[in-house]
C-alpha cells in the first residue's frame, strides 16, 4: 500500500484538508469583533462543541487514559478532578461574563476598574497560563508524529506551530470555533468507536478491572522491548487504590482544589463565552460542553483500563506491545486503538489526537493573541489604532506566539502531558479564578486587591511548582492548589478590605453583568 493510502496518513490528511477548507471559508475578518470573538455569532450547539474542543485537549484525549493505564485509581481521580471545573464555571461565571461582553479576559479587569495596570497584570497571567498549557499540547503532537510518522521531536514542534500560525492567523475566532467544533466530534467519534470495539471484544469494565487487580507476575511478550531484556513484572495491588501518585490525604485534596477551580480561570475557556450571542446561549453552551466532557472522561478512564488489560494479557500484536512500552503512558490511546480495531481505528485516533492538539492550541493562540494585540499593543503602544490595524496586529501576534510556544514545546520533551496541564490549572485557579468569582459577585473588590491577587497567585503557584524542593517537606505538593488558591482569594480580599477604594460606577457594572436579558421577553 502506498504510504499516503495508509489509514493514519489518509485520515490525517483529510483532517488537514478540512482545516484548510474551513480556514479558507472563514478567512475574512473585517472587524476586531470578527477576529477576536467571531462576531459573537455562535449558538449554543456550535459554541458548546467548541468549548468541549477547547477543554478536551491532548491531556484528556491521550493523557487521562494514559494516567489511568499507568496509575490505576489515581489516574481515574485525575479525570474526576478535571470533570468538576466546567460545572462551577457554568454556575458562577458563564452568564455574567457574556453579559459583560468584551473581547479578552484582560478586558474584564480593565473595565471593571478602568485600569491599565490591571490590564497589564492580566496580560502577564494570560501569557503565563497559556504557555504552561501550550507546551504539553505541543509535546503530545510531536510525540504522535514521532511515533507514527517517524519524524523527529523537533520537526513535530515546528510542524504543529506552523499549522497553528496558518489556522488561527488566517481564520481568526470564526475559523477557530468551527474547526474546534468539528475536531471535537472527530475525537468523540474515535472514542465511541474504541469503546464499542472494546465492549464488542468482551472487554467488560467490571471483568477487566477484576483481572487487572488480581494480576501478579510478569507480562509475557515484553522482554524484547525492555532495556534489560526481561519481561516486566507487575503487581495488580498497586492499581487498586489511591496513594501511588498522591502520597497523602492532603496531596489528594490539594489536587482536587487546584483542578476543580482551575477551569474558571483558563483564559481560552473564558474567552469562548464572549462568542455567544446572549448569556442564555452562554449557559447552554456550558451545559452542552459539560455533557460532552463528562462522557469523554468516562470513556477515557475506561479506555485506560482496556489498555492495561490488553498489555497484561501480552496477547496483542508485538508492535502494540512495543508502543505501549516505548511510547509511555501518553501513547496508550493510539496503541489501544490499534489493538482493538487495527490500522483504520488507529488512523482515526491519530487524526483525533491531532484534532485535540490543534483544537486546544488554537484556543490558547487566540486568547494569547488577544492579550498581545488587543490588550498590550492597542492599549499601550497604539491607542488610535484602526479596526483593520487591530486585526493585522492580531494576526502578527500569532506568529510571535508560534515561535514562543515552539521554544516552550522543545523544553518539555520528557514531561507527562496530564501533569503539565494540571499545573496550568493550578496557576489559573490561583490567579483568574479569585478575580472572576469575586469580581462578578462582590462589589468590594478593588483594583489594588485584584492586582495583588493576580501577582501573589502567580508568584506563589510558580514558586511552588518550580522550586518545590526548596520548601519544607509538608509544603511540597505535586499540585499545590491547597496553598496557592487560598493565597489568591485571601490577597484579593485582604488588600481590597484595606484599600476600600472601589470604582464609583461599580453598581452600573454589577447591573450590567447581572441584569435581565432582552431575549427572555
Amino acid at each position: 500500500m502506498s504510504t499516503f493510502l495508509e489509514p493514519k496518513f489518509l485520515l490525517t490528511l483529510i483532517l488537514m484538508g478540512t482545516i484548510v477548507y474551513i480556514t479558507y471559508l472563514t478567512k475574512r475578518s473585517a472587524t476586531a469583533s470578527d477576529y477576536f470573538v467571531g462576531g459573537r455569532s455562535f449558538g449554543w450547539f456550535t459554541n458548546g462543541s467548541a468549548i468541549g474542543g477547547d477543554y478536551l485537549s491532548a491531556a484528556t484525549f491521550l493523557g487521562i487514559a494514559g494516567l489511568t493505564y499507568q496509575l490505576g485509581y489515581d489516574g481515574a481521580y485525575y479525570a474526576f478532578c478535571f470533570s468538576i471545573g466546567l460545572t462551577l464555571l457554568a454556575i458562577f461565571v458563564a452568564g455574567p461574563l457574556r453579559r459583560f461582553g468584551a473581547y479578552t479576559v484582560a478586558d474584564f479587569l480593565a473595565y471593571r476598574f478602568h485600569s491599565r495596570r490591571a490590564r497589564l497584570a492580566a496580560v502577564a497571567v494570560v501569557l503565563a497560563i497559556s504557555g504552561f498549557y501550550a507546551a504539553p499540547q505541543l509535546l503530545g503532537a510531536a510525540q504522535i508524529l514521532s511515533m507514527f510518522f517517524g519524524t523527529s521531536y523537533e520537526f513535530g514542534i515546528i510542524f504543529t506551530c506552523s499549522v497553528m500560525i496558518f489556522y488561527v492567523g488566517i481564520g481568526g475566532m470564526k475559523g477557530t470555533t468551527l474547526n474546534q467544533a468539528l475536531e471535537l466530534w472527530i475525537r468523540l467519534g474515535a472514542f465511541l468507536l474504541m469503546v464499542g470495539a472494546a465492549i464488542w471484544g468482551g472487554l467488560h469494565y467490571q471483568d477487566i478491572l477484576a483481572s487487572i487487580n488480581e494480576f501478579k507476575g510478569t507480562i509475557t511478550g515484553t522482554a524484547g522491548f525492555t532495556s534489560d531484556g526481561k519481561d516486566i513484572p507487575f503487581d495488580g495491588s498497586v492499581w487498586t487504590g489511591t496513594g501511588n501518585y498522591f502520597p497523602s490525604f492532603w496531596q489528594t485534596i490539594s489536587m482536587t482544589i487546584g483542578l476543580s477551580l482551575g477551569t474558571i480561570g483558563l483564559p481560552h475557556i473564558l474567552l469562548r463565552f464572549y462568542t455567544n450571542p446572549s448569556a442564555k446561549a452562554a449557559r447552554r453552551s456550558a451545559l452542552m460542553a459539560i455533557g460532552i466532557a463528562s462522557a469523554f472522561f468516562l470513556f477515557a478512564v475506561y479506555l485506560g483500563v482496556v489498555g492495561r488489560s490488553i498489555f497484561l494479557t501480552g496477547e496483542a500484536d508485538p508492535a502494540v506491545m512495543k508502543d505501549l512500552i516505548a511510547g509511555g503512558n501518553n501513547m496508550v490511546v493510539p496503541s489501544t486503538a490499534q489493538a482493538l480495531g487495527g490500522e483504520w481505528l488507529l488512523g482515526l485516533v491519530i487524526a483525533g489526537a491531532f484534532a485535540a492538539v490543534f483544537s486546544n492550541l488554537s484556543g490558547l493562540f487566540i486568547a494569547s493573541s488577544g492579550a498581545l494585540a488587543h490588550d498590550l499593543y492597542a492599549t499601550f503602544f497604539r491607542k488610535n489604532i484602526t479596526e483593520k490595524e487591530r486585526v493585522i496586529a492580531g494576526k502578527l501576534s500569532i506568529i510571535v506566539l508560534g515561535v514562543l510556544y515552539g521554544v516552550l514545546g522543545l523544553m518539555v520533551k520528557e514531561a507527562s502531558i496530564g501533569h503539565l496541564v494540571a499545573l496550568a490549572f493550578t496557576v489559573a485557579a490561583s490567579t483568574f479564578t479569585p478575580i472572576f468569582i469575586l469580581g462578578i459577585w462582590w462589589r468590594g473588590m478593588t483594583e489594588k486587591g485584584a492586582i495583588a491577587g493576580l501577582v501573589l497567585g502567580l508568584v506563589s503557584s510558580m514558586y511552588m511548582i518550580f522550586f518545590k524542593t526548596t520548601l519544607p517537606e509538608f509544603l511540597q505538593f505535586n499540585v499545590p492548589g491547597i496553598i496557592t488558591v487560598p493565597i489568591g482569594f485571601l490577597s484579593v480580599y485582604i488588600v481590597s478590605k484595606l484599600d476600600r477604594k472601589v470604582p464609583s460606577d461599580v453598581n452600573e457594572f454589577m447591573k450590567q453583568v447581572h441584569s435581565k436579558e432582552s431575549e427572555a421577553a
Partner: protein
Amino acid sequence: MAGEYREYNYVAADTIDVSELEPLDPETKQIMKSEFSTGIKLTLFYYVFILSIPILNWYAGEFMFSRMWGGMTYSWFFTSIVAMAMAFVIALIHTTLYEKRLKNQAEQSPAPADGRRIG
C-alpha cells in the same frame, strides 16, 4: 442581545470608599441574590459529594476499595462513573432553574435592562 461595548478605550472613573457606595438597585440586588443563592446551594452540595470521595478513600479505605461489581470498587464507581453524571446533573439543574427564573422575570417586567457604556 447582551451588553456590547462600543469603544475599546475606557475612561478614568472616580473611586469612592466602599462604605459610601450606594446600595444596588432592588432589581439587580434581587437577581444577584437569587442567582447566588441557587449557585451556592448547588456548589455546596456538589463539593460535599466531591470531597467525600477522597475523605472516604483515606479514612474508610476498606469499604471504599471493596468490590461492588466485578472488579469495580465503590471508590472506582463513584469517581469514574457517578461523578461524571453528577457534573452534568448539577449544571442541568442550574441551567433549568436559571431559565425558569428568567422566564418569570420576563413575565413580570419585559423591559430590557440598560447596558453600561464605557468610553
